[in-house]
């Protein structure tokens, strides 16, 4: 899913880096940019809340995510239990908040794997060129032709179950998009005049790569990484919905949704609430990625 959605966006000519703005006026520009986009601010706040929930769940809820009050089972959402309670009387809001840590960890691992592996492949392909580039890019083409979920499932089969295994599988399945964007950027930058100048003034290849090519080609890859966060949240939750994530009592978002499946008839909140949280998170990340991808540079 990533590659298709992302490639055209990320391959677009690199957004003009807002270096032209005078540094002093930058904060004011940021404020004006945000004031005109309340949706973006909301998205930022939501993502921030999820991150805080992942690191300090205690700030949001004092209830235990794993132990419940059997008397209070299947309580509908209300003041005492914002998201209601499940079949064991556990507070669903507490479970979702504590689940944020697991889901965020999986997402970050997935994107890091894709970023590092894909970025390196693209960097080598673009910088070295020749048969190395051909070989790498053919492998990338094949990775693109296998549906991401199937590729992840193959890795899960080989690696086993668990949050980290699922995260790695999701990450490897999205290596291809990163490799493509990174290579395209490196190719673009490599022919730039300043790179040629560095070469001809006697700079070693590694210093050309590290000081000139890499910093100037990283922007679109970082935008892709932001978008990939959203895709990874969805992919990880799909796999944990299928039951390949963390084992049952752990409140991973995907397994929370699948856990509520058996009580669709009498407790709608068990599936609706965690799903809404996932959807809101993904929507927010997508909104932020869109702002990073040209919207900031285009707004003057």
């Amino acid at each position, binding site marked *: 899913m990533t590659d*298709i959605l992302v490639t055209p966006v990320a391959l677009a000519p690199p957004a003009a880096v807002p270096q032209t703005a005078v540094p002093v006026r930058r904060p004011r520009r940021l404020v004006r940019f945000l004031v005109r986009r309340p949706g973006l601010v909301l998205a930022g706040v939501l993502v921030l809340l999820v991150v805080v929930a992942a690191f300090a769940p205690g700030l949001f809820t004092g209830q235990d995510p794993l132990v419940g009050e059997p008397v209070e089972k299947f309580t509908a959402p209300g003041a005492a239990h914002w998201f209601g309670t499940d079949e064991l009387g556990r507070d669903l809001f507490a479970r979702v908040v504590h689940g944020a840590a697991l889901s965020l960890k999986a997402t970050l691992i997935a994107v890091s794997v894709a970023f590092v592996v894909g970025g390196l492949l693209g960097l080598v392909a673009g910088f070295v060129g020749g048969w190395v580039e051909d070989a790498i890019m053919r492998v990338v083409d094949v990775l693109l*032709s296998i549906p991401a*979920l199937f590729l992840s499932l193959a*890795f899960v089969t080989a690696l086993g179950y668990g949050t980290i295994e699922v995260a790695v599988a999701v990450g490897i399945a999205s290596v291809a998009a990163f490799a493509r964007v990174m290579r395209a950027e490196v190719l673009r930058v490599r022919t730039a005049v300043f790179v040629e100048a560095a070469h001809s003034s006697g700079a070693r290849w590694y210093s050309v790569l590290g000081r000139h090519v890499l910093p100037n080609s990283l922007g679109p890859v970082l935008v892709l990484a932001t978008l990939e966060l959203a895709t990874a949240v969805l992919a990880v939750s*799909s796999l944990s919905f299928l039951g390949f994530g963390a084992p049952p009592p752990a409140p991973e978002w995907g397994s929370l949704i699948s856990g509520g499946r058996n009580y669709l008839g009498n407790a709608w909140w068990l599936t609706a609430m965690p799903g809404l949280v996932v959807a809101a998170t993904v929507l927010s990340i997508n909104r932020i990625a869109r702002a990073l991808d040209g919207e900031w540079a285009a707004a003057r």
Partner: protein
Amino acid sequence: MGRYVLRRLAQAVVVLWAAYTLSFLILDLLPGDPVTAMASAGMDGGTVDPAELAAIRAQYGYDDPMPVRYLTHLGDALTGDLGNSVATGRPVVQTLADALPSTLQLTAAALALAAVLGGGLALAATYSRRRWLRQLLLSLPGLGVSVPTFWVGLMLVQFLSFRLQWFPAFGNEGASSLVLPAVALAIPTGALVAQVLAKSMLTTLDEPYVQTARAKGAGRARIHLSHALRNASLPALTVVGLLAGQLLANSVVIETVFSRDGLGRVTAAAVGSQDLPLVQGVVVLGAFVFVLVNLVVDLVYPLLDRRIAVAGVRRSLA
């Protein structure tokens, strides 16, 4: 044109071979042990006699060195034999062929729905002159790609099956059981189609020939539908091709949601029991469907835009 077709066919075959090889490597080199999995599947936690293990290894050829196994399996695959399922012992090809029709039915219904909904949304958004309506319609796809497919499926079951009892919640009997899974499956795909089509419609409507048509007095509907849509639909077609694999993969999840028989159940069970040959079969099948759909898309391009076939031939000659 003949050259163009041949070139695309050759590419398709190469990609399929590479997908087979890649899935073989993934499942072979990573630390899962198929023989132990097989043995423990039959024994339920009991200890396994090492001699028996060795016998099973020899029976499935796992004691051969990797390259030998690869070539043997590839040779079998070329004759249409993807090995036997470890869990059931049935041929993988047979298992997949049994599961496929129901899944293809679902995927095809979802694809049609996605094209109609996504295309309709994009056309309505670009046709609309009211700013707020256009903004509203253009913001819907962003929502569509952000919701988890399986969650949409569950919510549909919740409201339309349990509350209103319009559609059956589970199983695959009759056309009415196809509606909810197809809708859930069509939402992300349709949203992407809408995004791409709306964007390319907007660029196309700025082209000089559209202005010419307008100057000659063609009506808005005529300009949008018969002048712009044909050219604007090429990128959308590309996206449909690229999404085919994803659609198939998503249907695996959706089938689990709706407890439908099909590829989804087979896949989930295969991953669950570490049934390597079957998992590899699913991966190869995914690549096959992707390659096939994109082959068809590549062959449809020249019908929509004659320049592509000519350019394709020129590129292959160069």
